């Protein structure tokens, strides 16, 4: 497991596209301490690693697939009405490089 320290958390925040201040990282480190010790307890539960991870609450397998039929798309004005910086019917960003 990746060690938990401030620089690891800073990197995580940067990848998640936000910033935090010193005090917030301190709180977070405390929280990590708590959750990781609880996690250790989970690891000690007999049989925990002998079962498959569970994503769905119960077996929900079915065979439904959507027919390949189109529906009327959104009007462009509607689609873009919540975007703040629109030029020529497109959302503008600072130039993306690489």
């Amino acid at each position: 497991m990746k060690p938990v320290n401030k620089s690891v958390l800073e990197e995580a925040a940067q990848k998640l596209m936000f910033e935090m201040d010193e005090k917030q990282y301190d709180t977070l480190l405390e929280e990590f301490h708590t959750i990781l010790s609880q996690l250790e307890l989970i690891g000690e539960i007999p049989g925990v690693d002998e079962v498959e991870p569970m994503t769905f609450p119960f077996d929900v397998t079915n065979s439904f697939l959507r027919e390949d039929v189109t529906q009327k798309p959104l009007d462009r004005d509607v689609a873009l009405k919540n975007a703040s910086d629109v030029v020529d019917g497109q959302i503008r960003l600072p130039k993306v490089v690489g």
Partner: protein
Amino acid sequence: MSYLDLNIYEIHQALLDGKVTPLELAKEALSRAKADTNNSFEYISENEALEAVEALKNKDKNNLMWGIPFVIKDNFSTKDIPTTASSNILNGYTPVFSSEVYVRLINAGGIPIGKTTLDELAMGGSGMTGHKGFTYNPYDPSHKHMVGGSSCGSAAATSSNIAPLGIGSDTGDSVRKPASHAGLVGFKPTWGRISRFGLFPFATSLDHVAYFTRSVEDSAITLGLLAGRDDKDMTSSFKPVENYFKNLKPCISGVKVAIIKEILDSISDQYIKETYLKTVDELKAKGAIINYVSMDIRLCKAIFPTYFIISCAEATSNNANLDGIKFGPRYEGSDYQEVMTKARTNGFSELIRRRFILGSYSLLSENQKDVFLRAQKCRRLIVNRVNEILKDNDVIYLPAAPTTAPLFNASADKLSDEYLIADNYLAIGNFAGLPSLTLPLGKKEGLPFGGNITGRAFDEQMVLNFSLGLQEITGLKNLSSKEGK
């Protein structure tokens, strides 16, 4: 007396008899919403309500939602009505489509009174973390107690009789816990029973549409309308929908009722415990078969971390679409990273950002096996045990919460080692996707508390029928914070 203070099926009769009109009900509901002092609303939908009244077609004795006011949590997408999930990152966002739940309510003739407050992005249980501040428990005019969350606004509005129906969502206990604190019936049906199309996701594998009513009867009525397959939600079930209201009858005799000892034992409030045990005695007297069962204490203690890890991990991904580019407040920057980073730093509260880091840590390839996948495995162990219990029993019945509504406490949102099993166990209903209903059991010092009934997947009728029997035992039906005032 106002007709708005009645149950849905009673209001329905009054509407049929012409004793009250949808417009009168809507106006009353709107005026109560405007007078709300509990911070229940993100948005009061006056125009939309009046338009909905205007658009009503002929009344229909079989459509019990006709003309009924409702409120809906602000994490349900509503076309042309601002929807923020009580987060600054969605300030000013006006959806271009409506959630399936909202569409069904409107099509049935429901009248939308407003969008209700929640813990930011539904990620909390206190009703304290939304961008509009604390939502208060209507039973405490001094505003010292929380109503609980994350569906705090819908709980407060339903309990103060602004509407007889409050739509919410439940990922860990976000309807069933506040229902306990607000003296309401809070029902979370089986995962997949109600379409989640248009519900802002928090943790997809745990999220459920759930709702508050003031009686078990109203809960059955609402389920009949909302349940059913929706091709827009691939996780919605194909199982046929029953007529839950028509088939509703009190059912106790012969019902096998499991009580999980470890959870009950973790409750220290003697009054709540005794009140609960009294109902157990009465159930037994009426012919219920009571079985005390056990769940490994280590599994009980694992409920919270398991929930926490899975929900934070899914949440960090589910909310990655919030970047200020397509919608939400936009910030300028020299590159797209700066644009996104400013939007997300300013848009999410500190708590949310901390949760996202925890979630993303658990998903890192280096950690996933030991953190996220292990939590998912633990989830299976817990679910296996719960389903074992429900193999031999029809329902699990326990207090819904270990206490009445807590006082506001500044550190409530911080992760702490001190937690009670009984304060977090309702999440097993989300792990296993089981139908689970909270209803009032009593009051302590003026604040209500509830019990919770959880049944087998898609056995909503059993849960409702048993709950109706229990409601008859307690006699606590149509509670309202208004009486206390």
